[in-house]
């Protein structure tokens, strides 16, 4: 009998602890209150890394906002700059709890998860979100966002191309942070060996580029350009420089798109002539082709600059310019990648969030953008902020060229082209087509194939 009593008591204790465990975790999950106010402040002081471990993402403190961001060398310094700016000039009690994510897709998955379960309390007040994904996420999860339409911001100050990502059906949702303007960086010393200068590669056609590239490969053994063949951004950038898109009226425009066909044929020719090297994947592209010094030229969004700068030996040998175009005679401008800040449905302090974003990133605040550039290399799309002194300083790595001012200037010229929810799907189908074409497949049938696949995925006829 004694044994029985003991076992009953044991079982009861176990059940109790289990229930208690559930209870306490549930309460912290839903209230997310007192502890976080202190926790938020502490983690802010300790830096962003510590904050990543806290499960509670929002705080009840009236002066604290939380934000998801993913790159501590790039966009997190920009957010820290904005927080310091707002604290110094508007609200001395302001606190920004930056919660670091390991990569941008973590933020996308967090939104998907919250929206799928219908429980937005897991989201922070603000998220940094990739531009090309935003339209799709508004279409799929309209309830996850709060619009920024009623905010007092001079939107004309920003590059219209940048804003086209964060504006859905005429409503502004996001605040631009960085700048995706495409640069074409050349190794001037290698160009010189082949008998060219940076001016010889500015405003040229892709055919002329091909000739120069062949010469460069002959004399120096380096490719003039490389790209990730798996996620091939070349097509998008080259098309945008022509003012064209892979989409027309919301439907894929691939097989009958003469410009696109010319672009793909050009890419194929560059590959065959050993001017362009298509890497197997992203890390192959950055580590093997750029850092491992395989190329004499890099063309991508300007966020590629830190990758180029990893090779300290080549300091002073690089210079940047605009893109070639299909017909030549003019300079090409494009934009690729980048992100903006968005207010989520879970933000209870929307007024504070809007005010913070509008008075820092939205106002083209020099204090924010100068520090963002100096600490993280984040370049603005705001024309007024781009006029500051910091932007006009020469950069030693790029032969003292004032590249930041040049990037802002080029960014203002980027044509607005039709965007789509299916940007990345389209990219991967065309990338697959290009790999097959460089292996000898027929251009027309491969493009038709890519279009069919994309239409199938989009569910359009």
């Amino acid at each position, binding site marked *: 009998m004694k044994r029985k009593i003991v076992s009953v008591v044991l079982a009861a204790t176990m059940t109790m602890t289990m229930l208690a465990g559930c209870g306490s975790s549930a309460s912290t999950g839903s209230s997310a209150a007192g502890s976080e106010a202190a926790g938020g402040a502490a983690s802010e002081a300790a830096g962003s890394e510590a904050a990543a471990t806290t499960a509670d993402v929002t705080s009840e403190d009236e002066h604290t906002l939380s934000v998801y961001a993913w790159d501590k060398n790039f966009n997190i310094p920009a957010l820290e700059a904005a927080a310091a700016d707002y604290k110094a000039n508007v609200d001395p009690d302001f606190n920004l709890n930056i919660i670091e994510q390991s990569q941008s*897709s973590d933020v*996308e*998955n967090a939104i*998907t998860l919250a*929206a*799928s379960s*219908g429980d937005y309390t897991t989201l922070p007040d603000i998220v940094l979100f990739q531009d090309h*994904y935003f339209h*799709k*996420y508004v*279409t*799929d*999860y309209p*309830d*996850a966002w709060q619009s920024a339409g009623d905010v007092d911001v001079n939107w004309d100050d920003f590059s219209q191309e940048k804003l086209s990502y964060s504006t859905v059906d005429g409503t502004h949702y996001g605040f631009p942070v960085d700048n995706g303007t495409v640069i074409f960086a050349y190794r001037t010393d290698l160009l010189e060996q082949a008998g060219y200068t940076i001016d010889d590669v500015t405003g040229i056609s892709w055919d002329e580029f091909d000739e120069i590239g062949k010469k460069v490969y002959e004399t120096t053994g380096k490719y003039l350009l490389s790209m990730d*063949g*798996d996620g091939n951004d070349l097509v998008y950038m080259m098309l945008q420089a022509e003012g064209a898109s892979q989409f027309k009226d919301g439907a894929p425009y691939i097989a009958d798109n003469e410009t696109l066909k010319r672009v793909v044929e050009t890419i194929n020719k560059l590959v065959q002539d050993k001017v362009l090297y*298509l*890497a*197997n*994947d992203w890390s*192959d592209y950055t580590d*093997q082709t750029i850092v*491992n010094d395989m190329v004499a030229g890099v063309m991508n969004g300007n966020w590629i600059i830190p990758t180029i700068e990893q090779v300290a030996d080549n300091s002073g040998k690089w210079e940047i310019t605009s893109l070639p175009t299909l017909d030549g005679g003019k300079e090409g401008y494009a934009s690729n990648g980048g992100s903006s800040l968005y207010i989520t449905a879970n933000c209870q302090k929307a007024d504070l969030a809007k005010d913070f974003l509008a008075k820092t990133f939205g106002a083209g605040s020099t204090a924010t953008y100068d520090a963002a550039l100096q600490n993280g290399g984040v370049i603005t799309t705001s024309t007024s902020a781009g006029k500051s002194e910091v932007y006009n300083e020469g950069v030693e790595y790029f032969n003292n060229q004032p590249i930041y001012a040049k990037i802002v200037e080029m960014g203002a010229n980027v044509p607005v082209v039709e965007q789509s929810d299916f940007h*990345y*799907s389209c990219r*991967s189908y065309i*990338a*697959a*087509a290009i*790999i*097959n074409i460089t*292996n000898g497949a027929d251009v027309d049938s491969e493009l038709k194939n890519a279009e*069919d*696949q994309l239409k*199938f995925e989009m569910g359009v006829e």
Partner: protein
Amino acid sequence: MKKKGLTVTGKQRIAGWTFLTPASLLIFILSFYPMFQALMMSMKTGSSANMKWAPLLFNYKRMFADKLFMRSVGNTFLYLIIQVPIMLILAILLAQILNNKDIKFRGLFRTMVFLPCATSLVSYALIFKSLFATQGLMNSILMNLGIIKENINFLGTPGTAKAIIIIALLWRWTGYNMVFYLAGLQNIEYQVYEAAKIDGANGWQTFWKITVPLLKPTIIMTFIMSINGTLQLFDESVNLTSGGPANSTITMSHYIYNNSFGQGTANFGYASAMSFFVFILVAVLAFINLKVGDTRD
């Protein structure tokens, strides 16, 4: 003495149910209920925040019209047909050799063959990736031996990329299966071999007439496990080639993953439908295997 309410068997029954209930409940809630939910989800379509019932079997019909999914099925079966037989034959031969009592350092060799299994899937995939990179070790060796004239982009060419996935799988899983065979071989009495020797059977005959038939249960088990594992192949496709080049190495699980979490798609309905397709495939193949292997009349 008062008569108690329950008989002895009754008590035992209650005890049995009491012990059974918690585990069963947990399995039901954590395993069967989600499975049922997934089945329901596979009938729906739309964004994951707002899923709607699709026309009957919409997602299932869709997947047979999906060229990319069919390609992933083809790739998976290619791996299955080439890799599983080679691996199992190698494993059984290795087991046979390492079961020989006269070999020195048997334990060392067994450990060495089994060791690949102890590496994590991601890290071994990354090691293979750097081995076979365009500027990697394999290319330098082949270049220095004069076998090739120019570095080969192994992982960037459809044919070689597939071959490398198969080689990687062989390296990773042969030792694992060998251990099962070794265990199976321990159960075969040595007298059987002695008797065969007296009857004048050579090594080849002993292997086919004694070892293989007596190992049959183990062989069937490893077959089912390998088929199951290969059909759900994911890590190698993701980490070694990321499905490329041009989707020529993508597997079913990888494609399912891409449809649910990759590239912002969150197409959960379609992804669960494809998962059920894999489930049915595994079930059917395992069933055939069991039937073929069944020697009872």
